[in-house]
Every structure is written in C-alpha cells, then in structure tokens.
C-alpha cells in the first residue's frame, strides 16, 4: 500500500474492511463445510462396525441401524461434497494472492486430497445404491475404501493447513516461490499432531451425535434394543476418543509452543514473556490491559507443562509488536471453550467407565446371568435419565469444541495467512462486493442447514410428521424400486427391527 495522504488512508480502511469480511466469509464457509465433513470421516467407520455385525449375525436390528445411518450419511456427505467445492474456488476468489503464490507448494496435498475424495464418492455411489446389486459381504466391503479415503482426505488437507502454520522447505525470491520441495506440506512439523487431533475430533463429533440421537429417543421412552445399540456404539466412540484427544492435544500444544510461540501465548492469555509462567484456566483475556479476568491461576504450571521445568521461560504476546499479535481475547476464549468441553467429555468417559466396571463385576457375580444383549439383565452402559441427557450433550459439545479448536488454530496464526511469510491483508482480494457474497453465502447456507436439520430430525425420530405426504402413493412410484430406497422412512425395516428386538427380548427371558 504505497501512497500519500488521505488517499492511502482511505485505501487502508477499505482493505481492512475487505479483509475482515473475507476472513468472516472464509470462517463461515469452512465451519459449515467441516460440520458435514466430519461425518464423511467418522460415519463409515461406525457403519463398518454395525453392518459387519449384521453380516456376521444376520440380526435385523443391526441392519436397521445400518440402513438408517447410511441414509443420513448420504445427505450429509452430499452437502459436505458441494460445500467443499465452494471452498476450493473460494480460496481463489477471496485470497487470490495467496493461491497465486503458494498454490504450487500445496499442490501435492490438494491433488492427493482430490483423489481420496474421488475414491470416497465412487464407493459411496456403490454403497448407497448397491444394496440389491451386491452380496451383503461385498456391500460391506465397499465401506472400507470409503472409510480409508475419508480418513486420508483429512490427513491430506490438514497437511496444507499445517504448512500454513509452520511453513518450510520453500525458497522465495522477491515474493515469488522459486523452488519448493514437493513434500513440503507433509514435512511441516505441525502436521502429525494436527492430523491426529482432527481425526479424533471427527470421530468424537460423529459418535457424539449418533449417541445423542438414540439417547434422545430413549428419553422419549423408546428403550428397545435398537436404541440401546445405537447409543452404545456412538457413546463408545466419543468416550474412548475423549481421553486420547487429551494426549494428542498436548502434543499439538507442544508443537505450537515450539514453532508458534505467539499462538501459544494467545491461547494461554500470557502477555508478559517470563519464567515460571502460571497456567490460567478460563477467564476473559483483556486485549487492552493484557490480563486475564476471572481466570484461575495456577503458579508455574504453564512453564512446567511446556518446558518440563517450573522456571522455564515462556514467550508472551509482548515479544511481538502489536501489529503482529493475534487477537488473544478471541483465541483464549476459544481455547477455554475447547478445553472445557473436552475435559467435560473426559470426566463423563471416566464416570461411565466406572459405572460399567461396577456393573460388570456385579454381573460376573452370577445373579443375572440370563439374557443376551442387555435385554434380560441390566445393561452395562448406564441409561438413567441424567446419563441420557449427558449423552445427548456429547454431540453438540464435541462439535463446538472442534469449531473452537479451529478458531484457536486459525485465529492464533493471525495476522499471517502463511506464518511469517504472507500477511492476511496482503493476500486478500481487491475486488469490491465481498460483503454481498458474504451475505449471499449466509442466506444460502443457513437455508440449506435449516432444511437439512428438518430432514435429519425426521430421519432421527423415524416417524412421519403431520406435514408428511398422507399416502405412500403420493411418493413417486419409481422411487419405491430404487436401490437407494429413498423413501421418507422405511417403516418395514423399522417394524422388522422392533419385531426382532421383541423376539430377542423373549428369547432372553426364556
């Protein structure tokens, strides 16, 4: 921005507004996309389990769960796919200078991600529409490429983000990349921890929301085998991953402290560079004073955690000039939310594990040996009302924690789009009208999200609402023979499931 007097000031103001809007639009579309993308990662693994159980046992309850989830998955994956396309173009529309300079560096990540997405889309077509054209075993096998490709696509895309956080292996001259190691994104020290952290987050979100759907059903009195199993599978995923997430988060924070000390300072709300830095839990960081209000301060703990010594020196925000500091109020707030919700999930995991252990010991005592599959005896997983409410909360908690985590990653990198190499304000588009596209994006995405929630709610409750077509015949007749079975609900499957559950119940009590 070269210029003199008022003209230059005007341009700076315009660029500032445009940068803010472009960042907001990017954040909004990324957040929208990622809420769907996590199911593309997590759901196939859950389906592999439930459909595998059905293939092995022939139990209709497992089939009913699988069919229900595959239908929800179909819708979620499609919305994730199209919103992902928006992102790939939007980077060029909003950050043309960034893409022009570093597109080649990130080429391998995006190319490989594209292929993973390709594989996922191909096999999802076979999976969703191949129920009758494939044997049960072959149908189950199509889930493997979906699950592996979904996981790999996360891995590839996170390497691109990791490189933006800790860029390296690139030589630049006068603002142009003259040579870059093709594997640069994969060599970013930030990549391993970020990848594991995100994969676990995707599994937790999927597991939590699945558990929540069935917990909500049980709260309404539907305490059949179908709901119990749905709850168990979802809860197992979210609660097993929660403690693992603590470990991976710790690793990620170490890399941040090492490579992006200002981000760590913003996360912890530490203004003054010092030895023996305290760990501040919660509270609100004040950008004006550089202090955390209402936080709980534990002396020397941050130094101990990060440097393995109570007097280790920790970089504070004051190490950089104000223009180079991230917005610590926002980053510390997001970090607090993420850690708070993550800790709550870990506590829940511990409590559930404790109850399960006690019930298992008591069960082994031999008084309630009868019954299979949790029907004839007390199930291991606690299903009292408070427990169910907690299970309902796990999904939203995991989702919000994940979004907050992304705010920490991205907000903490500011004002850089590529850490230490390119500023966000230098990457942003000069074109007017970002405000209009942002407004349009919000309207479009909120409309689609609302419709999607209505559809998923219908799928989750499994019944027809009052506004549903009165007769099945009002549905297109051809759809009834469709492989994808895209009817509003499959009442027969539901009925089969309930009948199966009843039969099992009787079997158990005999």
């Amino acid at each position, binding site marked *: 921005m070269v210029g003199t007097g008022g003209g230059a000031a005007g341009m700076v103001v315009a660029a500032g507004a445009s940068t803010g809007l472009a960042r907001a639009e990017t954040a909004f579309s990324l957040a929208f996309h990622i809420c769907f993308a996590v199911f593309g990662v997590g759901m196939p693994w859950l389906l592999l389990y439930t459909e595998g159980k059905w293939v092995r046992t022939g139990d209709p309850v497992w089939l009913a769960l699988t069919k229900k989830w595959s239908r929800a998955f179909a819708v979620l994956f499609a919305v994730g*796919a199209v919103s992902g396309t928006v992102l790939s173009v939007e980077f060029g529309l909003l950050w*043309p200078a960034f893409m022009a300079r570093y597109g080649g560096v990130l080429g391998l990540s995006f190319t490989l991600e594209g292929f993973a997405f390709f594989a996922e889309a191909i096999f999802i077509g076979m999976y969703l529409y191949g129920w009758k054209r494939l044997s049960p075993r072959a149908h189950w096998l199509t889930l493997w490429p979906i699950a592996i490709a979904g996981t790999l696509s996360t891995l590839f895309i996170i390497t691109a983000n990791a490189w933006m956080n800790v860029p390296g292996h690139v030589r630049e001259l006068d603002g142009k990349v003259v040579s870059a190691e093709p594997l640069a994104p994969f060599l970013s020290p930030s990549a391993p921890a970020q990848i594991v952290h995100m994969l676990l987050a995707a599994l937790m979100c999927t597991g939590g929301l699945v558990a929540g759907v069935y917990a909500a059903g049980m709260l309404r009195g539907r305490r059949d085998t179908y709901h119990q199993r749905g709850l168990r599978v979802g809860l197992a995923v979210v609660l097993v991953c929660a403690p693992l997430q603590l470990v991976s988060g710790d690793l990620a924070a170490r890399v941040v402290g090492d490579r992006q000390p200002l981000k760590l300072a913003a996360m912890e709300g530490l203004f003054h560079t010092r030895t023996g830095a305290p760990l501040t839990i919660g509270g609100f960081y004040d950008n004006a004073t550089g202090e955390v209000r209402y936080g709980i301060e534990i002396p020397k703990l941050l130094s101990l955690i990060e440097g393995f010594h109570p007097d280790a020196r920790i970089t504070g925000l004051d190490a950089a000039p104000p223009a180079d500091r991230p917005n610590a109020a926002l980053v510390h707030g997001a970090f607090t939310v993420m850690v708070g919700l993550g800790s709550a999930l870990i506590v829940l995991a511990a409590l559930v594990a404790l109850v399960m252990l006690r019930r298992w010991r008591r069960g082994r005592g031999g008084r309630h040996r009868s019954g299979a599959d949790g029907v004839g005896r007390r199930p291991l997983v606690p299903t009292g009302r408070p427990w169910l409410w907690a299970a309902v909360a796990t999904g939203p908690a995991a989702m919000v924690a994940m979004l907050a985590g992304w705010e920490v990653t991205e907000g903490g990198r500011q004002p850089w789009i590529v850490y230490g190499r390119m500023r966000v304000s230098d990457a942003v588009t000069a074109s007017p009208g970002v405000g209009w596209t942002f407004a349009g994006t919000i309207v479009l995405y909120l409309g689609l999200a609302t419709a999607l929630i209505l559809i998923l709610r219908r799928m989750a409750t499994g019944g027809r609402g009052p506004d549903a077509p009165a007769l099945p015949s009002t549905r297109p007749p051809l759809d009834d023979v*469709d492989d*994808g079975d895209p009817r*509003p*609900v499959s009442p027969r499957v539901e009925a089969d499931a309930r009948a199966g559950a009843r039969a099992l119940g009787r079997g158990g009590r005999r």
Partner: protein
Amino acid sequence: MSAADLLLVVMVGGLTAYALLAGADFGGGVWDLLARGRDAGDQRRLISRALGPVWEANHVWLIFVLVALFSGFSEAFGIIGSTLQVPLICALVGIVLRGSAYVYRAYGGGAAGPDRWWGHVFAVASTVTPFALGVTGAALATGDLAEDDPWRPLTNSFGLVCGLFAVTVTAFLAAVYLCRDAAGSPATEHLVAGMRRRALAGALASGALAAVLLPLLWSDAPVVADRFAERSIPFAVLSAGGGAAALVLLWRHRFTAARVAAGLAVAGVLWGWAAAQYPDLVVGRATANSAAAPEANLVAMLIAIALGMLVIVPSMVLLFRLFARPDTDADLADEH
C-alpha cells in the same frame, strides 16, 4: 513436452470427463426443468435414478481440474479468481443447490418442504451451472477481463452464447444417455420416444448454436480464432462427424452407439478449443509457461495423478458396470 504441457493435457482429459459425465447430469436437470405433459413425472424419476449412484463421483472431475489448475498454474488461478467472480459464484451456487436439492428430494421425504420445490431448485440449478461455466470458458478465450468490472464476462454476446451452448450440449448428452436408460427396462420403455425426440432436437440446437459461435469467435476472440483455424480443424471435423453420426444413430434407435458418437461430438468441441487456447490460459494475461509452478512440484503432481488414476479408473469402471444394467422387476420383489 514439458511437465507443464503434460499437466495441461491431463487437465483437458479431466475436463472432457467432467463434460461427458457430469455434463450429462446437469443436462438431466435441464430436462427435469422442461418436463411437461403426461409423462413428466416418469421422466423426472428416470432422470433422478440415472443420477443417483454416479453424480457425486462425476462431480469430482471438476475438483480434479480445479486443483490441477490452482496447484499447477497458481498465477492463472489468481487472475481467474479476481476477474471471473460473477460467473464462478453463479456456478458455485448452482453446484451447491443442485447437489443439496437432489439429496433433499431423494431422502428428505418432504420433511423440509414438498419434494416438488426441491425438484424445481434441482432443475434450475442444473441449468444455471453449465451456463455459468460456459461463460467462464468464453472469458478465458477472449481475455476481455477487468479486476474492477466483475460483470464484464456477462455483457458480451460471445460469452452469453457460449453459456447457452454449454446448456444445450449438456441437455443433448443427457437426452442421448437417457434414451438407452429408458430403453433398458419395460417400466420405462414408454419414455424412449420422448427422449429420442429431445435428443434429436438437442443435436440440432447444438449444431445451430455452434454455427452462430464461429463468427463470434472471430470477432470477440481473434487470437484464439486464428489458432483455431490453424490447429483445430481436425477436432471440428471430429465434432461435426460425431454429431451427424449421433443424429443418424438416434434415428435408427441405436442408442448405445449414439452415446459414443455424442460423446465424440462434445469432446471434439473441447479439444478444438483447448488446442486453440494453448499456450494461453487466460488470453493476454497468463500463459502455460508464465503461470506454471516450479518444475519439481509439477512432476510430483503428475506422479501423484498417475498413481491416483491407477486406483480411480478401475474403481470408476466398477461403479459404471455395477449400475449399467437397468433395474428389473426382480429388484422390486427383492425389497427389504
């Protein structure tokens, strides 16, 4: 041939796959929009079922081309991003609405508004997307772009006719493909006659628009036009021959062969344009050489693409073979 040129060839291949596969999916939406009369409902269901298993995989070809463009020719992508926002945003909105509306109609069961509404959204979005992409392609050929005038691509007649041409061509492809789908099952045989009429009309309309486009190409994109005369005549002949063959084959109810001929007709247009466009990516702004990423990165991408295709192509063949056979009544009896 340099790595950049090789990557361009791969991108044209990807674009061809996108046009022939996803293009037909969009064209199906155009026919959904235009469906009228007694058979309208059956036609819409035929289209919807043809899309079901494959549209997402077909869509990924666009992502493939986009990724190759922004990774391999980053500077060109930067220029496109800052001058072609309006048609690109239209295409994106179309892509998002088409995909969402399709699954909302197929799986929503009316929970979020009547299926009919989503059907309309699906149809309109399917028509807007190829139009916007056609306008984008035209702008790359004319180079008539400005950072401060994002609406310019939509104000010249060449761009608009190109958009219309893209819509017509996708509709033509879809109708040809649907003829065979409809003929494959007794339940849909009554739709063949209508689809065949549409395919014939689509072929004639595409040919007429192509005839209009040629003089416009010379007036609006002289650089590309000169190279077109120099290099692209064989492709133009291929395209015209394919189109004529498709007409004859449709007339004689040879629907499988008509698919191949129609595909060649469309591929000929794309290849002729690509040959005339080279070495410019955006005429007057970016060439293959000026915009290319460092050689080592291009080679790495090409290796990744080669390895990726080893997995993707067989998978895709498997997908198409699995769903090539139309549903039979046996499927109905087999309902869970």
